[in-house]
C-alpha cells in the first residue's frame, strides 16, 4: 500500500477511536449518574484513545520513510558488489540510479547486463516487502493502541492531563521543526561554502578586489581563470542600499511624522493605507519600473547636464528600492512616534515650545531607538533585496562609489551563478553559497544589532 493511503487509513482509525473512546466513557458515566462523575470530559477520553491509536503508527511511518530507502539501496549495492564495485561516490550514485530506474521501469531492460537486471528485481522485491511489512506493522500498532486506549477508560482515569501533555509536545515538535529547518538551511549553505573555500582561499574571497567567476570548463580555454574577490559585490550592495536609504529614511520618517503628529483623522484614514499599498506591490514590478522608466530617465537627465549616466545605474536601482522601503520605515516610525506618551508632548508644549520644536527636540529623540531599529531592519531588507537589482543594477562587478555607474550586488551574482545549467562541483557555482553565507551573516548581525538597540532603549521614557 502507498504511504499516503496508509496515512489516510490511520487517521480514519484515529477518528474511529475517538468516537469509540468517547462512547465508552459516556456509557460508563450513565450508571454512575452523569458525566460529572468522570474525571475528565468524554471528549478527553476520546482524544486519548485516538492518540494511542494514531500517534505510534505515524511515528513509525516517519522513521520507516527516513531509513527505508538507504537500507534497501545499501543491501542491493552490496549484493552486486562482487561483479560491479563502485569506486567513488559519483559512480555509486550512478549505479544506484541505474538499478532504481530499471526497477521502476523507467529504463528499458533490453540490453542491460544480467547482473543489473537481477539487482533491479532484487530491489523491486525488497521494496514490496518493505511496503507490506510497513502496512502490517502500522495496522497492528494502530489496533493495539486502540485496544490499550479503550481498555484504560474508567471513571477515575485521568485522561485530561495526558491529552494536555501530548498536545503540548505536539506544539513543541512544530516549533522545533521551524528551528531545525533554519539550522538545516544554514548548515547546507555552510557545507557548500566550506567546499568552495577548499578551492578558493577564504582570505582571497573576503578581501579580493576582483570578481569574475567565469572558470575554464575545458583545459584549453583561455582568459577565464576565474577570480572570486567579493569586495566589489559588497561595495555594490552597500552603494545600492545606501542610495535606497538616502531616499527611504528622510521620506519615510517625515511622512511618519506628518501622519502621526499633524494629519487630521480623516487624512490619516486614507493616507496610511495608501502608503501601505506601496508595500504590497510585487518587487518584480518595481524592478521593471526601475529598468524601463527610471533608469532611462536618469540617463537622459544626466546627458542633458553633460554627465554620463550608465543606463543601468546604482542610482536607479537604489532609488526605486528606496521607494519600495518607504512604507516599511514610515509604518514602523509611525508606531514608535505614536507610542511616545502624551505627557511628553504636554510637557514640551506647556514650556511654550511650538509643535515642530516639540517634534524635533522631544518626540524624535524619545522615539529614536525605535526609529533606529526600524531603519536597521530596512537596511537588512535592502541588502537582501534581489529582483530590483537584477533588473536595474547591471552585471558588471565594478569597484566604484559612483552611483551613476553600473554596479552589481551580491544577490544579483547569486542569481546569475545559479540560473541555467550548472555543474555543482565547480567553484563558480559553489561561490553562490559562499556569497549567500556572507550575506546571511551580514544581515543577521544587522538584525541582532537592531534588536539590541530597540531593546536597550525601549523603556527609557516609562
Amino acid at each position, binding site marked *: 500500500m502507498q504511504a499516503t493511503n496508509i496515512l489516510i487509513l490511520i487517521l480514519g482509525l484515529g477518528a474511529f477511536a475517538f468516537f469509540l473512546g468517547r462512547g465508552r466513557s459516556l456509557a460508563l458515566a450513565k450508571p454512575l449518574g452523569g458525566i460529572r462523575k468522570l474525571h475528565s470530559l468524554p471528549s478527553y477520553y476520546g482524544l486519548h484513545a485516538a492518540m494511542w491509536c494514531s500517534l505510534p503508527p505515524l511515528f513509525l511511518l516517519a522513521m520507516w520513510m527516513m531509513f527505508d530507502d538507504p537500507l534497501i539501496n545499501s543491501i542491493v549495492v552490496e549484493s552486486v558488489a562482487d561483479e560491479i564495485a563502485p569506486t567513488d561516490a559519483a559512480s555509486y550514485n550512478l549505479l544506484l540510479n541505474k538499478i532504481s530506474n530499471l526497477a521502476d521501469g523507467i529504463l528499458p531492460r533490453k540490453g542491460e547486463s544480467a547482473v543489473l537486471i537481477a539487482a533491479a528485481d532484487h530491489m523491486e522485491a525488497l521494496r514490496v516487502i518493505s511496503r507490506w511489512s510497513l502496512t502490517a506493522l502500522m495496522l497492528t500498532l494502530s489496533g493495539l493502541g486502540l485496544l490499550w486506549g479503550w481498555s484504560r477508560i474508567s471513571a477515575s482515569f485521568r485522561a485530561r492531563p495526558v491529552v494536555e501533555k501530548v498536545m503540548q509536545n505536539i506544539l513543541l515538535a512544530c516549533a522545533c521543526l521551524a528551528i531545525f529547518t533554519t539550522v538545516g538551511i544554514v548548515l547546507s549553505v555552510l557545507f557548500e561554502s566550506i567546499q568552495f573555500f577548499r578551492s578558493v582561499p577564504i582570505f582571497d574571497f573576503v578581501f579580493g578586489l576582483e570578481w569574475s567567476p567565469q572558470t575554464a570548463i575545458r583545459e584549453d580555454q583561455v582568459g577565464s581563470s576565474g577570480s572570486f574577490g567579493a569586495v566589489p559585490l559588497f561595495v555594490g550592495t552597500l552603494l545600492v542600499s545606501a542610495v535606497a536609504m538616502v531616499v527611504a529614511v528622510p521620506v519615510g520618517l517625515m511622512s511618519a511624522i506628518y501622519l502621526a503628529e499633524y494629519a487630521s483623522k480623516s487624512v490619516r484614514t486614507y493616507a496610511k493605507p495608501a502608503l501601505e499599498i506601496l508595500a504590497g506591490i510585487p518587487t518584480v514590478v518595481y524592478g521593471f519600473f526601475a529598468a524601463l522608466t527610471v533608469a532611462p530617465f536618469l540617463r537622459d537627465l544626466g546627458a542633458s547636464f553633460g554627465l554620463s549616466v550608465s543606463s543601468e545605474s546604482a542610482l536607479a536601482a537604489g532609488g526605486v528600492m528606496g521607494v519600495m522601503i518607504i512604507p516599511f520605515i514610515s509604518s514602523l516610525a509611525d508606531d514608535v512616534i505614536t507610542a511616545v*506618551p502624551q*505627557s*511628553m*508632548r*504636554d*510637557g*514640551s*508644549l*506647556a*514650556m*511654550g*515650545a*511650538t509643535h515642530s*520644536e516639540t517634534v524635533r*527636540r*522631544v518626540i524624535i*529623540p*524619545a522615539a529614536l531607538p525605535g526609529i533606529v531599529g526600524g531603519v536597521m531592519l530596512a537596511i537588512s531588507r535592502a541588502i537582501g533585496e534581489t529582483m530590483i537589482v537584477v533588473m536595474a543594477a547591471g552585471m558588471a562587478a565594478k569597484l566604484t562609489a559612483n552611483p551613476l555607474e553600473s554596479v552589481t550586488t551580491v544577490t544579483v551574482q547569486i542569481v546569475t551563478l545559479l540560473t541555467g545549467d550548472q555543474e555543482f562541483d565547480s567553484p563558480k557555482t559553489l561561490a553562490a553559497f559562499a556569497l549567500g553565507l556572507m550575506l546571511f551573516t551580514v544581515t543577521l548581525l544587522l538584525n541582532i544589532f537592531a534588536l539590541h538597540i530597540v531593546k536597550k532603549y525601549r523603556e*527609557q*521614557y516609562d
Partner: protein
Amino acid sequence: MTQAATAEKKNPAKKTVAKAVNSLDVSDHQATVGKNFADNAKMTMRNVNVFYDDKQAIHDVSVDIAKNEVIAMIGPSGCGKSTFLRSLNRMNDTVDICRVEGQICMDGEDLYSPKLDVVELRARVGMVFQKPNPFPKSIYENVAYGPKIHGLADTRVDLDEIVENSLRKAGLWEEVKERLHQAGTGLSGGQQQRLCIARAIAVSPEVILMDEPCSALDPIATAKIEELIEELSQNFTIAIVTHSMQQAARVSHRTAYFHLGRLIEVNPTEQVFTMPEHQLTEAYITGRFG
C-alpha cells in the same frame, strides 16, 4: 422604623446635604460665595464656560488670582478643576473637541484673543503635571530646554547659570550637581517632579499652574514639594489643583471649591477649612462625600 430613617434621625445634617447635592443640577444657576475677586489681580476670569463637544465641563466661573498668592483648587473627581486649570495656559487647545467661552485675562490682556501668541503665553504661565514627565534627556538638558527654545541665554555661561539657579530654586541642585549630564528619567519620582518644577521656572514664568503635582509621590517627596511651593510663592503666582485637603490647607492662601463644574466657594484657606460659607464646601471638607 427602617434603618435609613434611624440614620436620618441621628444625623439630620446628612439629609440636608444630600438634598443640596442632588438639587445642584446643570439648570440651577448658583453664584459663587465668598471672596472670589482680588484687588491686585494677576489673572482675572469672568464667566468662563468650557465645553467638550456638547458636554459642558465648566459653568460660568468668575474668579481672580492675586499676585504672588497660592490658590488651591479642590473638589471631588470630575468637578472640572483640572480642565479649568488647563484653560489658563491654553493647554486645552491640544484637545480638539474642547471649547472655551468667557474671558480669561492676565495683566489685563485677553488670553483667548486671536492676536495672542500661545508660545509666549506658555512661557509666562508655566505648568507642572500630575505625573512627573521629564524628557528623556539629561538633567541639564531638561532644565535648559525652555531657555533654549525661548533664546533666554546668549552664551553657554548664561545657560549654565540659569540651569543652576533653577535647580537651586527647585531645591534639587545639591542632589544632582554631580550628575547633571545623566538622564533625568533616572531620578526618583520626587526628584523628577522637582526637576519638572525647575524646568518650568527656568523660563521665569509669572504664573505656575500645578495639576495635582504630588499625587504620584510618597509623603516625604510631597513634603519637599510643599515646602518648595511656599518658597516659590515669594516670586511666582501659583495655582494648584489638589485632591488632598490637607495639602490645600498647608500650602495655599486661598482655596476654591469646585463642584460639578461650578465654582461654589472661594475664601481664605483658614476660613474654608474652619468656617466654610457654603454647605457643599462644608460637606466636602468634613468628608461626607467626594
